[in-house]
């Protein structure tokens, strides 16, 4: 299946830039997520690909087909782009049965009756709803409706699939199942997919590539693990979960790495940097779960050996999250948050920041 390439999409409304040089490629058969808070331009970008939104500038190509080219004045109508789109509200036609909904794109393409029947059955089997073909959308649960919407988007065998927050109407438990199920389906079909969400967990769990958008711009692109561990900016770091920020002055360390002196924090924080950080202050992002916490018992043991592991810290607040514990710690004069799988005992703890845990960000 052909790749999808979006080049330099721009759109200005009054003085606001809705799309600011949005530029990305969705490689053949991969799953790309546009992630960002509401109003960041992610749905606008998706709708520009679908053909429901006309940007001021830029191009959109799908394989060797030109979907949109502002300079050439070329804007292929949405109905001729032949993509599969799943909308946030699912937009199932309430006056048609599940079967008729799924057959709709095929009927428009004047497929033969037998072909339609065969294809509808195949696609409904794919989404595990073959027995509900005669039901009307209002008789289905939210999860089933979402699968019908997907079946309709897939029934004419599109070469790319566009999904606009398809899980936002599902409850948490169902959302998790739908997520796994959709990921498996996408891998099996190998269909080039663009997914829009504001949910970082969904983005991290499903994507081959994540594009984080903010104020109409793509501020970070990469694999989920790369984007999570090396957010690059404070915005991305905060948007993708909890994060500690340590600001100080950097100096070169002996082994080729760097050390950060943070005012108020005893000791230095080791980190690696591809480019040498300047003389100015440097900010590091450290994920709470990346902090190594040695509990009071372990600390006592270490002390008895005369070798204290990490810096001493005070627990100022403890929050039970179910599967983990969230701690607010005071390390020197610096406040840090830490996540641990086990509960820490009473008393002081010791915190260590390893070299891999910290990554340089710009504000």
């Amino acid at each position, binding site marked *: 299946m052909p790749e999808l390439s979006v080049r330099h999409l721009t759109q200005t409304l009054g003085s606001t830039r809705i799309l600011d040089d949005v530029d990305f490629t969705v490689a053949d058969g991969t799953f790309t997520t546009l992630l960002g808070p509401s109003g960041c331009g992610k749905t606008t970008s998706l709708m520009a690909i*679908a053909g429901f939104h006309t940007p001021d500038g830029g191009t959109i190509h799908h394989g060797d087909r030109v979907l949109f080219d502002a300079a050439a004045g070329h804007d292929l109508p949405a109905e001729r782009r032949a993509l599969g789109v799943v909308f946030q509200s699912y937009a199932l036609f309430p006056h048609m049965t599940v079967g008729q909904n799924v057959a709709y794109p095929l009927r428009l393409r004047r497929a033969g009756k037998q072909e339609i029947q065969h294809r509808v059955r195949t696609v409904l089997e794919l989404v595990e709803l073959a027995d509900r073909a005669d039901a009307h959308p209002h008789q289905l649960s939210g999860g089933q409706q979402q699968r019908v919407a997907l079946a309709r988007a897939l029934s004419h065998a599109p070469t790319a699939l566009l999904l606009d927050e398809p899980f936002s109407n599902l409850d948490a438990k169902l959302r998790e199942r739908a997520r796994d199920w959709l990921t498996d389906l996408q891998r099996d079909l190998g269909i080039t997919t663009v997914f829009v969400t504001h949910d970082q967990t969904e983005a991290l769990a499903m994507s081959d590539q994540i594009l984080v958008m903010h104020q109409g711009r793509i501020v970070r692109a990469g694999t989920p693990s790369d984007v999570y561990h090396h957010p690059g900016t404070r915005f991305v770091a905060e948007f993708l979960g909890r994060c500690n920020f340590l600001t100080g002055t950097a100096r070169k360390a002996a082994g080729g790495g760097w050390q950060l002196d943070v005012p108020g924090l005893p000791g230095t924080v080791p980190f690696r940097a591809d480019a040498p950080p300047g003389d100015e202050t440097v900010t590091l992002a450290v994920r709470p779960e990346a902090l190594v916490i040695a509990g009071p018992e372990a600390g006592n043991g270490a002390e008895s050996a005369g070798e204290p592991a990490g810096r001493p810290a005070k627990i100022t607040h403890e929050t039970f999250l179910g599967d983990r514990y969230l701690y607010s710690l005071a390390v020197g004069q610096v406040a840090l948050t830490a996540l641990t799988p086990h509960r820490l005992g009473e008393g002081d703890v010791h915190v260590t920041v390893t070299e891999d845990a910290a990554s340089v960000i710009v504000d």
Partner: protein
Amino acid sequence: MARARCLHRCDLPGRRWLGPALLAPLLIPPLGLIVGWESLYGPVGYLTQLWSTNLHLPAWNLESLPGISVLGAVVTLPVAYLTCSAVLEGGDGTLEDAVRASGGGNRQVLKSVTLPTLRSAMLDSSLLIFALCMEVLGLPLFLGRPAGIDFIASYLYGVWTGSATPDPPIVSAGAILLLLLVSGILVVRSLLMRHQARYASSARATPPARPIRLGRWRLPLAIGAGGFVVVTSVIPLLGLGLMSSVTDLTTLVPPWQLWNGANWSQIWRDPTLHRAFTNSLLIAAIGSVATVALVSLATVLAHRSGFRLRRTLPALLVYPRATPGIVFGVGFFWLFLIVNWPGALLRNSLSGELLALCVRNLTLAYVVLAPALARLNPELDKAATASGAGWWTTTRTVTLPLLRPALRSAMVLMFVTLVSDYDPVVFLAKPDTELLGTTMLQTWAKGLPGPVAALALVQVLLVAVALTVGFGWTLLKKARRHA
């Protein structure tokens, strides 16, 4: 006078539970209601006679300015009710709860929340009713004429029908004056409303207001409200039925001794009356289907398409109803006269009247269809387009099928209106092309109330049948779905 009437009308808001019964005057053909009132409450009306002659109590005079105002108020009351209830239903219920939580009672809720939020609706309906009253034709013709009271519309009508040459210039001049006056009022209204919208509208979804507990006032108020509906709508309709079936309605002889089918057989035998019935039925049947078909397309075009002139369409669709009917009549008369082809074909023919009536009332179809369309999720259109459907295919396979209930309502409303409306065609109707309304005006002028009452009852029955068929179907479908 009209203003006082409007203000009086708007003191309704607290009584929302009055319900759809208050809307009855909107659906009862206006001429039927007027004839019903005249036959019972008029100077020689049955109940007036009973009251003054038999009980020797001081009587009222319906054929006076206050009398006409009261009936005018009853006829236009649904407008005020609709405007105010729309505001109340869309209102923020938490505001009223906030007053209660602060310790305020019902009176305080009314004073500090309900009335202030209704202020713009009251202003709106006042102006609307004022505009409506400026152009009323039937009321002054039926009730004002005997007492020598003329309104602009009835004066113009009188000059027109009384003059030797058709279309004296004064009518056109008067029509333009009326048009300017009413347009002026509506412009003022839209200006005021635009200003108001800034403060009133809230995009946030809020829980609806809880009904106000009435306590011991519940029963008396309910009786009062019910009595109002009975006196203003139910009894006049009964009077209409009575009047159409007796030779003379008088307190001197019991009605059952004067029982007589003459009026009804006259409708059947008199070719003019008979034709008026068939013509009206034809116009209502063709007109409602054709208008709804056209307006539904125009509505979808205006709200769900990339059509270049789509933004001007809603204004065009709303304007006809805002124009006084009699002005419309004069306008169409001239249009058919000036435009030689196809004007010549439409002049003096039923199709010309059909056109005038449909154009004048297409706003009603739009008013029903536009909100229904606005409630349709735009993503449904997009889903059809993403599946590969163009605009027309989307409209045909998705939008219009989903609008079906609204289309049916619009068709019923159009039918009901076309059966009763008459003022746009008073100058267009010729022998052979009479309609129920115009024939009633002429027959009334001849001093024959009996056949008029029978014709009015025919109108009422047609409306009742249309409503039963239209909404009965919906109910039946609902019942079947639940079963």
